[in-house]
């Protein structure tokens, strides 16, 4: 049973560029959450997708957007990249119904903005 997968593993972008990160949830899960983990910090919640809609959003600007596909996979898009967007981006998936509180994390995508 495959767990949560993310791609790419690493990428380097330049300020002002746009980036797309991808996540495939654990089999049987229908909810995907995204977190940003800056160096030396705990993960911060960006948003959560359920039924192809953004269900909840953290304190992140509109430059951060996402999408969920019918197969429950998800993308995180960041526009107009800033140096401060350099971080590890973690995707987490959770199951249906009341198991939404049990989130499983992927290995993350390390984004470096130069």
């Amino acid at each position, binding site marked *: 049973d495959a767990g949560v997968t993310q791609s790419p593993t690493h990428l380097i972008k330049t300020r002002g560029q746009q980036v797309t990160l991808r996540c495939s949830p654990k089999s049987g899960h229908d*909810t995907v*959450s995204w*977190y940003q983990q800056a160096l*030396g*910090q*705990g*993960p*911060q*919640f960006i948003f*959560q997708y*359920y039924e192809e809609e953004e*269900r*909840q959003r*953290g304190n992140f600007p509109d430059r951060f957007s996402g999408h969920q596909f019918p197969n429950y996979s998800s993308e995180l898009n960041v526009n107009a990249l800033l140096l401060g967007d350099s971080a590890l981006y*973690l995707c*987490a998936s959770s199951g249906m119904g009341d198991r*939404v*509180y*049990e*989130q*499983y*994390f*992927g*290995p*993350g995508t*390390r984004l470096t903005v130069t």
Partner: protein
Amino acid sequence: AQSVTQPDIHITVSEGASLELRCNYSYGATPYLFWYVQSPGQGLQLLLKYFSGDTLVQGIKGFEAEFKRSQSSFNLRKPSVHWSDAAEYFCAVYASGTYKYIFGTGTRLKVLA
């Protein structure tokens, strides 16, 4: 507002010694609590979780944690630390109704041979 505090940024212990990592939370209702471990450059691995019931929960790798409602704490313990336990440890609470985890800032564990 919900929050998680991990008072110790760094902890150093000798291999074979016991370990306790502190976690305090602020949350109005009964919380769902978690401990994760993260090795350098890696994602988060779940060590253990508390939802309800017995306040002493067992996890993987010999870790356990005790939920104390009166102290709003969920401290992680291990009786004998191994060198491979060196990593960063995060405590988290699931904020019901917001669908998100709130993480502490982490405790970096160093193990001396």
